[in-house]
């Protein structure tokens, strides 16, 4: 496979990572560190990698901060180093290294304060440009992301020996098992270590285990899938990289976000090898000992020719043995301990490995790659060893993050010199290295036991199986955090360049709490979240403050375990699919008529219907309004919420939720109702019709439909469960059209033939009825929002479009015109009807001039608190109408009102314009406004003050009913 890095083309193999392929090509330098721009290579072979971060992909596909160690190679992969200028080799940012003494931890808190204006103009832009690692793409992410749900009995996190054993034990019992591993190959350390299981290579056993699991119908394996978070209710977040390793595949998403609900979980996430803080421990060529083994054994890559292993435990020795057995120049072991086990020494001797005991690496040398290491010998002398590879084995930390996501803290195990799981999240058990079982045999045993136990807990019978055989390899260890004799910079947090000195400084300045330490030095805040750094940092702070490591404590582990792309969390919900779109039955028709749509909640509603030749929206809207006032218009009002309220107690129920009385409403009549919240503020309004003695149909505003339903169900189920009343949302069943204007009756008569008598006597204002027409059930309400003779015609939604067309056809001779929400708004403002801007959650019924609707003889929701002094204060803003004194002046809602001549201030504020419309009927702009004590101020002149948008305008307070205040048109 060919791939590119920093413009050069290389070859690699399938099954490589970007890191292994580059190492194989002799590349050592991968990137620059965050602060000092130190040259950095590859430190690990896993997702804990802090150094080898690259920009992957080009253009819209550019992805910053990608860990080369887990990036599976694919044909055509293209990557660049980052945080360097002009090139990786020659990086001017490296001068920061020279400035290091001046830019120690927290330096910015102490300077850049003067002069004040320089912060935003000079200092901060400099800092911001210097900071950051990679560059985000400038274009929209072109890939698809998917979300998926999964449910299982047993979730196994990690497919190393422990996880495979757990999955086998649970899977063989018949439990529904889901096994996730973030690697693209199952096996965990078995892929990187030379070991034997059942007399064969560990890797072979892993392959067989995987094959058996794949054959079980009740087991699902998800490779390339990181379980990144533990959430409440035994819900786990996992990210599957579906095609990251393939390039774009039509039909397949780039990544898939899994939401997994598991009855039991086995945490078999392994352990992470830790570094040792010594001078120059960050130089390219310094690598974790286990990573060296992985590169050698799994990828067949020699990460160096002359190797030194610096260790304080038995496990590190195996790296030297593997290097030797792989035929590389004989490595040297530097063990800080003085007396390691005999058999290690014997094996080293057999392999010709040089051993230096009781010694520590104090420094390294080399410009962009390691050249030599300096070792302080037990006798006080030092020696320099040539080396292009230094393998560091500082011991192991169980991979605990997931066990702490719900807030639990790990416990310190002094036998391991490491934190092990504390109380685990509900349903979780830990196994293998994650549980502090650091040998292969223990991992297999622990995994099988945990898997069996989890399956059992889910009610499955566990069948006994022969446990795989393996030896408990030597794993003795001692703690070595910091080489005290080092004079050069010793890094704790590689990416953030936090050194031992920074921790000393933080301690000196009182940032001793582990969280202060973190926040002051940024220790553990890099992209690896301290996987490599935290415990060492704590250990050093513990030593400085004479506390034990557990006394210092740990910082909080937070999701995600490894960073997750925002796009993956967003899934398909972006662009037009961000939220569902609700369309009415006649949407297509409206679109064909030139409708411009507006979002109302999730609905799209025609805002106006642009006709050819109309140059702006106002023309269209004025035409529509005029048509309604002079002839007849039709408006789709299907989006209003509609609720069937039925049952013997339906009327009593409505009396409690509305401020006015519905029990006295005769069958065949409708009434306008207002409901309050508990706190006495207006909640919603609408007309409710009585279709039968026990059957009402309530309408709600479009925006509040769902909330009203919830409110009513609360009243029914929580407040008054004894009432015999039933609710059903019928919003979607009925397409509903307002037919408004002096010719509305004429139109309906023409269309409905003799299906219903529509004379004012037979069907007066606020009448309602249900009848059959052309084989469908039709409901008709004589209600009006426009002040015109008006009806609302409801038909089953499948007929909506046809009926709307029928209305148009029948109305053509009368000049029927479809109108949208904008004309609807103009019509209602001309009539002083309140809507959303007035029902803004802070107004009372009295504020809106609806106070007299409040029945005195019954209780209803909100009544008590509506009586609080602050809500009955006569100085409260009240609804009024406004006109501009100069009829040509344009009003805007959101303008405030001032007494004419007063200087603008909050104290002088008299109120504001809630709704504004240009009235073609009156040929001027009109407004509704909430004005302090407004009803007593008719005729007063005020100034509409709108500094954001224009000059002050003189206005006059008037009645909010501008058109036909007597209601003659309504009752025509």
């Amino acid at each position, binding site marked *: 496979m060919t791939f590119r890095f920093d413009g050069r083309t290389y070859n690699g193999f399938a099954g490589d990572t970007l890191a292994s392929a580059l190492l194989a090509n002799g590349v050592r330098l991968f990137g620059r560190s965050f602060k000092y721009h130190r040259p950095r290579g590859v430190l690990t072979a896993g997702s804990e990698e802090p150094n080898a971060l690259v920009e992957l992909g080009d253009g819209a596909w550019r992805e910053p901060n990608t860990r080369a160690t887990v990036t599976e190679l694919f044909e055509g992969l293209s990557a660049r180093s980052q945080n360097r200028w002009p090139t990786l080799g020659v990086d001017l940012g490296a001068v920061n290294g020279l400035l290091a003494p001046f830019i120690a931890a927290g330096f910015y808190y102490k300077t850049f304060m003067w002069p004040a204006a320089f912060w935003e103009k000079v200092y901060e832009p400099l800092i911001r440009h210097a900071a950051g690692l990679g560059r985000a793409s400038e274009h929209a992410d072109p890939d698809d992301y998917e979300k998926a749900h999964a449910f299982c009995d047993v979730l196994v996190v990690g497919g190393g020996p422990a996880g495979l054993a757990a999955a086998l034990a649970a899977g063989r019992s018949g439990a529904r098992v889901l096994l996730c591993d973030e690697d693209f190959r199952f096996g965990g350390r078995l892929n990187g270590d030379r070991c034997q299981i059942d007399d064969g290579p560990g890797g072979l056993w892993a392959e067989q285990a995987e094959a058996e699991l794949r054959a079980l119908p009740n087991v699902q394996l998800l490779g390339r899938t990181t379980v990144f978070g533990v959430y409440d209710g035994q819900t786990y977040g996992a990210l599957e990289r579906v095609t990251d390793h393939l390039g774009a595949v039509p039909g397949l998403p780039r990544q898939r976000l899994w939401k997994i*609900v598991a009855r039991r979980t086995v945490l078999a996430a392994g352990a992470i090898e830790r570094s040792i803080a010594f001078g120059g421990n960050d130089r390219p060529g310094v690598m974790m000992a286990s990573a060296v083994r992985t590169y050698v054994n799994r990828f067949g890559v020699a990460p160096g020719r002359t190797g030194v292993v610096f260790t304080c435990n038995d496990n590190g020795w195996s790296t030297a043995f593997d290097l030797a057995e792989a035929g590389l120049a004989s490595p040297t072991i530097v063990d800080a301990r003085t007396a390691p086990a005999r058999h290690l020494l014997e094996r080293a001797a057999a392999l010709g490995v040089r051993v230096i005991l009781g010694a520590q690496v104090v420094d390294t040398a080399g410009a962009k790659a390691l050249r030599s290491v300096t070792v302080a010998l037990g006798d006080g002398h030092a020696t320099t060893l040539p080396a292009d590879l230094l393998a560091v084995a500082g011991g192991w930390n169980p991979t605990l993050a997931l066990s702490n996501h719900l807030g639990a803290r790990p416990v310190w195990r002094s036998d391991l010199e490491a934190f092990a799981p504390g109380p685990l999240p509900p349903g979780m058990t830990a196994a293998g290295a994650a549980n502090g079982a650091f040998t292969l045999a223990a991992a297999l045993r622990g995994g099988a036991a945990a898997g069996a136990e989890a399956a059992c807990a889910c009610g499955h019978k566990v069948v006994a199986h022969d446990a795989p055989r393996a030896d408990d390899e030597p794993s003795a260890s001692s703690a070595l955090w910091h080489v005290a004799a080092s004079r050069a910079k010793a890094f704790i947090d590689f990416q953030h360049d936090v050194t031992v000195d920074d921790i000393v400084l933080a301690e000196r300045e009182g940032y001793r709490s582990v969280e202060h330490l973190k926040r002051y030095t940024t220790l553990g805040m890099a992209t690896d979240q301290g996987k490599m750094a935290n415990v060492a940092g704590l250990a050093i702070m513990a030593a400085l403050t004479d506390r034990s490591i557990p006394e210092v404590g740990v910082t909080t582990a937070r999701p995600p375990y490894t960073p997750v792309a925002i796009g993956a969390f967003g899934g398909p919900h972006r662009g037009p699919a961000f939220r569902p779109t609700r369309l009415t039955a006649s949407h297509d028709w409206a679109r064909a008529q030139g409708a411009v749509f507006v979002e109302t909640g999730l609905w799209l509603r025609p805002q106006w219907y642009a006709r050819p030749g109309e140059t702006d929206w106002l023309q269209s809207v004025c035409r529509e309004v005029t048509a309604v006032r002079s002839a007849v218009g039709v408006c789709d009002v299907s989006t209003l919420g509609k609720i069937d309220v039925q049952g013997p107690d339906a009327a009593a129920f409505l009396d409690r939720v509305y401020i006015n009385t519905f029990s006295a409403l005769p069958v065949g009549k409708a009434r306008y109702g207002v409901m309050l919240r508990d706190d006495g503020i207006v909640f919603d309004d609408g007309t409710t019709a009585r279709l039968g003695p026990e059957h009402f149909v309530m309408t709600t505003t479009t925006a509040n439909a769902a909330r009203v339903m919830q409110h009513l169900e609360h009243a029914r*189920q*929580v407040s*008054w469960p004894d009432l015999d009343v039933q609710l059903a949302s019928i919003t979607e069943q009925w397409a509903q059209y307002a037919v408004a204007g002096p010719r509305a009756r004429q139109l309906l008569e023409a269309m409905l033939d003799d299906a219903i008598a529509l004379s004012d006597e037979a069907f007066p204002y606020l009448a309602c009825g249900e009848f059959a027409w052309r084989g469908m059930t039709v409901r008709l309400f004589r209600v009006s929002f426009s002040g015109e003779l008006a009806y609302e015609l409801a038909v089953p939604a499948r007929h909506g479009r046809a009926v709307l067309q029928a209305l148009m056809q029948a109305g053509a001779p009368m000049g029927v015109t479809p109108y949208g929400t904008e004309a609807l708004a103009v019509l209602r403002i001309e009539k002083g009807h309140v809507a959303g801007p007035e029902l803004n959650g802070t107004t009372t019924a009295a504020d809106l001039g609806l106070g007299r609707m409040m029945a005195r003889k019954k209780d209803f929701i909100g009544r008590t608190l509506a009586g609080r002094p602050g809500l009955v204060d006569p100085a409260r803003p009240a609804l009024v109408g406004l006109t501009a004194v100069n009829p040509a002046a344009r009003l805007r809602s959101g303008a405030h009102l001032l007494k004419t001549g007063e200087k603008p201030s909050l104290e002088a504020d008299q109120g504001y314009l809630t709704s504004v419309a240009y009235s073609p009927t009156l040929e001027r702009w009109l407004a509704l406004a909430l004005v302090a004590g407004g009803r007593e101020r008719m005729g007063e002149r005020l100034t509409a003050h709108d500094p954001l948008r224009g000059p002050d305008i003189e206005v006059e307070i008037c009645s909010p009913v501008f058109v036909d205040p007597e209601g003659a048109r309504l009752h025509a």
Partner: protein
Amino acid sequence: MRIPCPFCGDRDVSEFAYLGDAGVVRPFPDAADAGERVFESVYLRDNPRGRHAELWYHASGCRGWLRVDRDTATHEVASAVLTRAPSL
């Protein structure tokens, strides 16, 4: 977080709407101290750390109002019952 709806079974929290303290009962009709009690029921709700009886609405499920016993420190749900017993 998951809530065991007595009708629907275990469901993700995203299907539910939260109202809060279930301990408060709206006084109805006018008791002597109704004003005070309504005020308390609307504004002074329990806010303990630990077990909490609260009202949830299964908005995207069965539309049932539930009385849920939940721990506000651990988010563990001990029980959930319908506030209105199903009609007989």
